[in-house]
């Protein structure tokens, strides 16, 4: 029943909301999306862009106004949530507060009338998978946020769903936990081979978990592709911003950077370039010159705000050992892997 290869295809999906006074709001606007078997796709977008609605529509929790959602070629329009064979994991887990960890994880198994011994064995297996051995009898209220999310993940994976939907799975956690859990979940999903769709506003989360990325804005998917591919070539300035790029330099500045970086590869005529915060590095022999406007030490490096000749205000970094003072004139190097040319200006 599960794991059997099938692609989830979304075609022309449109979801409108009746929003009282303001009339209709188009939350999802003619979206096309394919989720190949075994892939982990992240839908990345700012809050309110409709990404959660997209996920809920795929789950069957929202009715679409137009378009098709199909799995393995079979239209899901007439299939209610509980018969889709998908699993949904929420931001805060939504464990059943009145049931202990084992009962929560075993819930979908009991729904399918598995034998008690089988349920117990599978629950043990899942607890092991998410690293929560010995937690079977704990109540959800006694767990930390990260532990709750692990239980929620185990519960979602219990019956090997055809598709796992994760709605901002780590954003309720603190930073350290978020990074650790995201890495673990990526690992678990890959090992289980579960086709997954993660919805998030956090590019680091997307980067950690997914192998494919879909950038969503105002109800539309503006860019879909492999992780590295999308990362290296954001479709426009605001996509770049979502992907964690710090600034976009256009015009002369872009051309300058194009000559510096792309000179060898022949891509000299860039219109706009997106820079990460670490694209410029303090380097005595670097090709660029600028003035330090602000410097702030972090545990790993020194973050700089610079006025760079030909580029304007941009960010940069220096090693902790380097002495940097505000107002100081410095030379800067460019790291080609920390910037991306935008295909065209919008």
């Amino acid at each position, binding site marked *: 029943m599960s794991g059997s290869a099938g692609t989830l295809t979304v075609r022309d999906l449109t979801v409108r909301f*009746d929003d009282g006074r303001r009339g209709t709001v188009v939350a999802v606007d003619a979206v096309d999306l394919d989720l190949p078997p075994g892939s982990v796709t992240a839908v990345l977008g700012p809050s309110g862009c409709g990404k959660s609605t997209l996920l809920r529509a795929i789950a069957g*929790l929202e009715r679409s106004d137009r378009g098709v959602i199909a799995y393995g070629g079979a239209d899901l329009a*007439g299939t*209610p949530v*509980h018969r889709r064979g998908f699993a949904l994991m929420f931001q805060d887990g939504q464990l059943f507060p009145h049931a202990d960890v084992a009962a929560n994880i075993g819930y979908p198994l009991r729904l399918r009338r598995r034998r008690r011994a089988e349920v117990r064995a599978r629950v043990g297996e899942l607890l092991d998978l998410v690293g929560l051995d010995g937690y079977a009898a704990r109540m959800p209220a006694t767990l930390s946020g990260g532990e709750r999310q692990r239980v929620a993940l185990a519960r979602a994976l219990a019956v090997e769903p055809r598709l796992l*939907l994760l709605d901002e799975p780590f954003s309720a956690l603190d930073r350290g936990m978020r990074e650790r859990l995201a890495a673990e979940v990526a690992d678990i999903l890959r090992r289980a081979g579960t086709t997954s769709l993660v919805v998030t506003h956090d590019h680091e989360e997307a980067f950690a978990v997914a192998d494919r990325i879909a950038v969503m804005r105002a109800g539309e998917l503006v860019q879909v592709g492999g992780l590295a591919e999308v990362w290296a070539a954001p479709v426009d300035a605001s996509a770049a911003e979502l992907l964690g790029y710090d600034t976009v330099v256009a015009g002369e500045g872009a051309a300058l950077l194009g000559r510096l970086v792309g000179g060898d590869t022949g891509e000299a005529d860039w219109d706009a370039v997106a820079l990460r915060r670490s694209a410029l590095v303090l380097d005595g022999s670097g090709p660029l010159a600028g003035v330090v406007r602000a410097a702030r030490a972090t545990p790993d490096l020194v973050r700089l705000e610079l006025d760079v000749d030909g580029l304007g205000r941009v960010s940069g970094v220096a090693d902790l050992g380097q002495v940097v003072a505000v107002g100081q004139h410095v030379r800067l190097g460019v790291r080609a892997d920390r910037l991306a040319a935008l295909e065209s200006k919008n």
Partner: protein
Amino acid sequence: MLRPGRWRGAAWGTAALAVVPLAVLGTFFLYPVSGMVARGFWPDGSFDPGGVAEVLGRERIHRVLWFTLWSAGLATLFSVLLGVPVAYALHRLRFPGQALLRTLIVVPFVMPTVVAGVAFRQLIARSGPLGGLGLDGTPTAIIAALVFFNVSVVVRTVGSFWEGLDRRTEEAAAALGASPWQVFRTVTAPALLPAVASAASVVFLFCSTSFGIVLTLGGLRYANVETEIYQLTTQELDLQAAAALSVLQIALVTGLLLVSARARTRGAALSRTAPVGRRPGRRDVLVLVWTALVVGFLMTPLVSLVLGSLRTDAGWSLDNYRALQTEGAGNALLVTATRALATSFEVAVQAAAIALVLGAVVAYLVSRRPRSRSGRRMLGAFDGAFMLPLGVSAVTLGFGFLITLNRPPLDLRTSALLLPLAQAMVALPLVVRTLAPVLSSIDPRQREAASSLGAGPFRVALSVDLPHAWRAVVAAVGFAFAVSLGEFGATSFLARDDDPTLPVVIFRLISHPGSENFGMALAASVLLAAATGAVMLAVDRFRVGSMGAF
């Protein structure tokens, strides 16, 4: 594996689920009430609104209306004045014995009206403990009894709201230099106002539609709209006038319900923090003394009722209780009081069962949030329809039953289900109001999570709704049972003379002359109060916040 069409089927299932309570409401509430209304406007089969206008122009009707308004208004005012400080003491402070006081405060509210009427009468009768005050048959007695009933509504509604108010707002004001009084005036009072307004409108509603109290204490001189309807139908057989008054009452009460619903939604958007009571300090002394006085006021009639039931002309004795096994002096009754108690229990069990089944379905549907605006609007109307029994006088309902369900296709005059059905209609809004907030407070994503893991709608209700709401279900059943035990308005029309319920028996006993019958009425009242009280106290242990708060 996939079964297309099933999803649409679920929507039909929901609609079908809604049909059952709607059909019952239509048949056993709307049909009788509209039958009653039709009597007013179509007295001889032809439309005659002039007759209604004529009735509303009568001087006596004006007197009744005026009395209804000012007695209910004063009773509401006093209930709020007495109740708000008590709400503070019982819900913002923390002191030993508080749980007991909270329970005692609820007791009057769950007392059957007839019992409260008898208790007050006994207290202020010329021969009673407070006979010297000369309150017998005065409006003061009626108002005091109404206040007795409704203080707990104020305490519960305002108290549970106050408990949830974020203390940090007050602390911030205090840190900015506001004195305790200034904090109350500028921060607490404005935040509290919606809850007070909501409580006051509900209390006014209860007071202006009070039946048992006014009938037992008002005598012949004072009548409100509700008792006047009763008088007009049973004594004077002026059905047109009764129907006209019913229509007027329905209009007024519906307006009031809308106001109170408004107040409720305005107050709903508050952050709620975990309630932690403060130990009382010196400045709380006044409030605590006030609370003690209020509790004393509430307990006096009840204690006096118990003591009175243990006295006969010959001194202390249990004779009044022994008399419960007889038909009363001068054969005031056709059956024994104990037989009537058995009937009351039997009817209450059936009424509670009906109210629970219907109320659970209604609350379940009302707690869903449809996406479309039309869906939300339909649900709102659906919800409102089941609040109607709160607004239509039980007397109107009872009389409507009599005149509409007495001929084919629905000839239920002799049906044993007639009385339980009527009482279930009276209890239904309370069941819905107890269950719906609990079901609505469940995060919808809990149901979505269960659903996505493979649970069908029934399974979702079983594994998400029920574990959250079972306490509320128990509370609602108990509530419905207690309401039905004490129901008097509709029952006074529908109970058969040869098989009455206990409240009817009590009323008949106090209407008959003779101190023996009065003593027996006291004993019967104690019995009824004890039965109702026991149910409510058992239910109160489940601590469902939504119960008894509006």
